[in-house]
């Protein structure tokens, strides 16, 4: 309780309470995340249980009863009669899972390499940072596409569906580690020269312990900020890849897949199949991004 009260009183909590944008963004993000996590319990229909699907329900407009079955769907249905609202909940689940995992993967890789480069310096540093520079000269979506394509070449077709999602996570993660590595390296170099690190070295603390126990906690602040914004970017990257048809398999549609499917029907009048997933993606990416922006400002002492 004491700890909770102290957290409530902290500068960051105060800054949150005084930022309407952050509060609204947090509420929206929370609703989407909760909806995605609890999709199997919340969703009115299971869009992936083919037994429960009725093709006659196809193309039901939102909020109107179907002309054949009389069933009403909040956001309408797609060509196969799947409830759009339910597919969004399940789609957001995939999108969030891929985005989150990709960020975690990029974080682990970026922090590890960044710490190594910042601590060791010299040629290790040069090597890591030159690789990073080369990678930065290509758009990250292109790198994700490349890695994705190469990985698929190595995986036997029978396994593709199973591992597609993991390939996707690794592709996005690998295209995204550079920014974390750069920030961590810079911060690690600053921390390394500080006297508390020297004090630990004088005592003879093992270098690995100095890096993990002393330096790492002090470089995490800025990293978490860009990780939040990175989450929004990873979700968008996943959507882009899925939209291009190289992402998750259609049996596990993410928000991007839903949008790809939906755009086929845009000109034939079934606008809802595209619109609702697109709005869901927009709200998710925007709210996470706004939270990241707020966090950056709140943690930046110069703006306070």
């Amino acid at each position, binding site marked *: 309780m004491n700890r909770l009260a102290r957290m409530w009183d902290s500068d960051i909590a105060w800054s949150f309470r005084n930022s309407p944008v952050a509060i609204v963004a947090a509420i929206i993000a929370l609703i989407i995340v909760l909806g995605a996590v609890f999709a199997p319990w919340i969703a009115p229909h299971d869009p992936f249980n083919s037994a429960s699907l009725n093709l006659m329900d196809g193309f039901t407009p939102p909020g109107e009863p179907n002309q054949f079955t009389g069933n009403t769907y909040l956001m309408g249905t797609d060509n196969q009669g799947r409830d759009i609202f339910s597919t969004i909940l399940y789609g957001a689940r995939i999108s969030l899972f891929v985005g989150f995992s990709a960020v975690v993967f990029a974080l682990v890789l970026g922090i590890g390499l960044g710490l190594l480069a910042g601590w060791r310096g010299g040629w290790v540093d040069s090597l890591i940072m030159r690789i990073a520079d080369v990678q930065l000269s290509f758009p990250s979506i292109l790198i994700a596409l490349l890695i994705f394509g190469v990985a698929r070449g190595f995986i036997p077709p029978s396994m593709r569906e199973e591992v597609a999602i993991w390939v996707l996570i690794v592709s996005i993660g690998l295209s995204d580690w550079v920014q974390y590595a750069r920030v961590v390296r810079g911060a690690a170099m600053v921390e390394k020269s*500080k*006297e*508390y690190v*020297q*004090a*630990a*070295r*004088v*005592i*003879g*603390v093992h270098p690995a312990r100095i890096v993990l126990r*002393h330096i790492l*906690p*002090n470089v995490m602040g800025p990293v978490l900020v860009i990780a939040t914004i990175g989450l929004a970017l990873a979700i968008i990257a996943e959507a882009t890849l899925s939209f291009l048809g190289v992402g998750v398999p259609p049996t596990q549609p993410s928000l991007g897949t839903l949008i790809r499917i939906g755009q086929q029907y845009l000109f034939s009048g079934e606008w809802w199949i595209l619109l609702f997933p697109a709005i869901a993606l927009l709200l998710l990416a925007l709210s996470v991004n706004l939270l990241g922006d707020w966090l950056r400002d709140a943690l930046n002492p110069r703006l306070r």
Partner: protein
Amino acid sequence: MADALLKIEHLTRYFDISKPFLNRMLERDEKQFLTAVADVSFEIKRGETFALVGESGSGKSTIAKLVVGLLAASEGTIEFDGHKMTGTTGTEMRDLRRRFQMIFQDPFASLNPRWRVGDIIAEPIHTFGLLKGADVTNRVGELLDTVGLSAKDAEKFPHEFSGGQRQRIAIARALSSKPEFIVCDEPTSALDVSVQAQILNLMKDLQDEMGLTYLFISHDLSVVRHMASRIGVLYLGRLVEVADGKTLFSSPQHPYTQMLLDAVPDLALSGRRRKPVDGEIPNPINPPPGCAFHPRCPLAMDRCKVDAPHQVATETGYAACFALEAEAKAS
């Protein structure tokens, strides 16, 4: 010589400040070196406070880092209680490390902001495996008490303390492995005078109680006067004079020492004017040839511009100056 705890001989350290390899190749530059410490030798006896005093670029902090092993010597040897520090490894080095500690200049940077004070102070205890469990907590409490804080402060974070209190925490950490020798690198220069007095007094008390030996690094002559039993004066990485505390201040031998003393503000308002000194410290990358001080020295002779001066024995130590050498020969 059995009572010399630290013995430094011909200690030299240069830094490679060349541009990166590719730039060097393209611009056809030579490798560049900065000599931060040049052929410095001195001894510190058990229980004394040896001070190194000098201005910026004098190499005093580099010597501190060399002594505690944060930097490796380019040439020369450092011997701690008969053990050569270079080449010693493993458990022997670990045992040596326990016996010396360091106090840093900036108490705002020398404590990890994310650690609790208790963990900070206990780090040497854990590293050397000195105590376990509840004994650690008790020892930390004792140490906090010793430096004038309370055992309850172990639960707090560094930002909850003022500069002076943080320096006390840093001292407690330095004491926690029960060292014999502490390198103090400008321990009070980041503190206000009234707090500086507290810390200096505390350091003196601790020395008396525990028989500590200090290597005290400072740019402030008045502080050095107060703390040190022996003093070495550094100029551009060279030790220009070594003498007993009292002797150095009553009869400074080297012209640079005299200049430094003249530059100390006169608080007693005795009407003594500070003698402004001409010139500034030269760039250490390109130190003047011969005696490094000759461009600013009122006694400089032709010889000073060519040869490096030798050490001339003085009353309680030595000074490196041709003018003194000539004087000694004349008398």
